[in-house]
């Protein structure tokens, strides 16, 4: 009965949504519409916000990847919030699993192939992760996927060191320091420039590694933070064996 009702409701939702998407809300081309107004000064512009991003990213931020420029510079405050969401979730998870974490279960010794393969592969995985977040302003990727790749390396470590898991304290310190440095980079913008998270470093040469001002710094902080947080989440979910 309940199932049938749920099915009817969801099919109705499907029909309504696809009708709405397919007819009502054709997304307009951002090159043809969406002229904006600066709400404070009242000045009007005859192009849209994304068009401004696309055309000015090079001069404003020095990044070649427009998405990165938006994520870290133009809408950098959102990203600080996003990092905070992950941090909040990791904190809440650790709080909830505090008493659950210690447990005694039969320890399955990882097999030889896994152990020796991890020794070889792990440094490369960390390297790839670091590459992804350091090159965030040049290539697709950035702090979040880079951090996730590093967390995948941590997952391998968890799989191999079945008894002790990850060094919790070190992860926690890394996480804190990365978060603090992110906010401090932002606050320094208030000091050296005028606004929070504003760029105050030279933009450097376009498409070079050392360019784009504070973007690589912030992405490195994010990479460390996301990696240690996701690693901590997996560590907590797995639990620690106690003899």
């Amino acid at each position, binding site marked *: 009965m*309940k199932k049938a009702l749920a*099915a009817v409701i969801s099919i109705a939702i499907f029909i309504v949504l696809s009708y709405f998407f397919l007819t009502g809300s054709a997304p307009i081309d951002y090159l043809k519409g969406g002229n904006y107004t600066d709400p404070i000064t009242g000045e009007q512009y005859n192009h849209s916000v994304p068009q401004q991003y696309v055309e000015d990213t090079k001069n404003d931020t020095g990044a070649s990847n427009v998405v990165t420029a938006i994520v870290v510079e133009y809408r950098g405050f959102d990203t600080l919030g996003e990092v905070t969401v*992950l941090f909040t979730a990791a904190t809440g998870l650790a709080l909830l699993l505090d008493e659950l974490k210690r447990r005694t279960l039969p320890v399955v010794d990882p097999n030889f192939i896994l152990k020796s393969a991890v020794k070889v592969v792990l440094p490369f995985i960390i390297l790839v992760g670091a590459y992804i977040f350091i090159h965030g302003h040049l290539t697709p990727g950035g702090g979040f996927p880079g951090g996730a790749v590093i967390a995948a390396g941590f997952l391998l470590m968890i799989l191999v060191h079945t008894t002790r898991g990850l060094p919790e304290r070190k992860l926690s310190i890394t996480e804190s320091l990365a978060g603090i440095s992110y906010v401090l980079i932002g606050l320094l913008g208030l000091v050296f420039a005028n606004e929070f998270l504003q760029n105050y470093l030279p933009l450097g040469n376009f498409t070079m590694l050392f360019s784009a001002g504070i973007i690589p710094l912030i992405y490195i902080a994010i990479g460390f933070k996301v990696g240690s947080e996701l690693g901590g989440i997996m560590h907590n979910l797995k639990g620690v064996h106690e003899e």
Partner: protein
Amino acid sequence: MIPELLQPVFVISAALLSIGLYGVMSKRNMLKIIISLGLVDTGVNVLIVAMGYLPGGTAPIENGNYALYVDPVPQALVLTAIVIGVSVMALALAVAMGYYRKTGTLELDKEGVMKW
């Protein structure tokens, strides 16, 4: 009229949303509900990325031709949304594990989450 490529994309989005909502409404198993929520999240993300698509456009990474970039803003928003979705999912799993520890089951009461 919407671009041809977006038709299957919108169908995917609407389908994921309704499958996810169906799961949330009809299931009592906590992990099942979390899985359904993940589907809803993916559906919304697909929708947002589709909002920025430009027929014949290229990825917004330096290639010298600004006029052909797809809209980069929805992509930035979706990056945020994906990370938020995973955070919520991890926390939800922790809550489900705590509930399992206290009750020995993952099933919610008879009414599921729809009890008022």
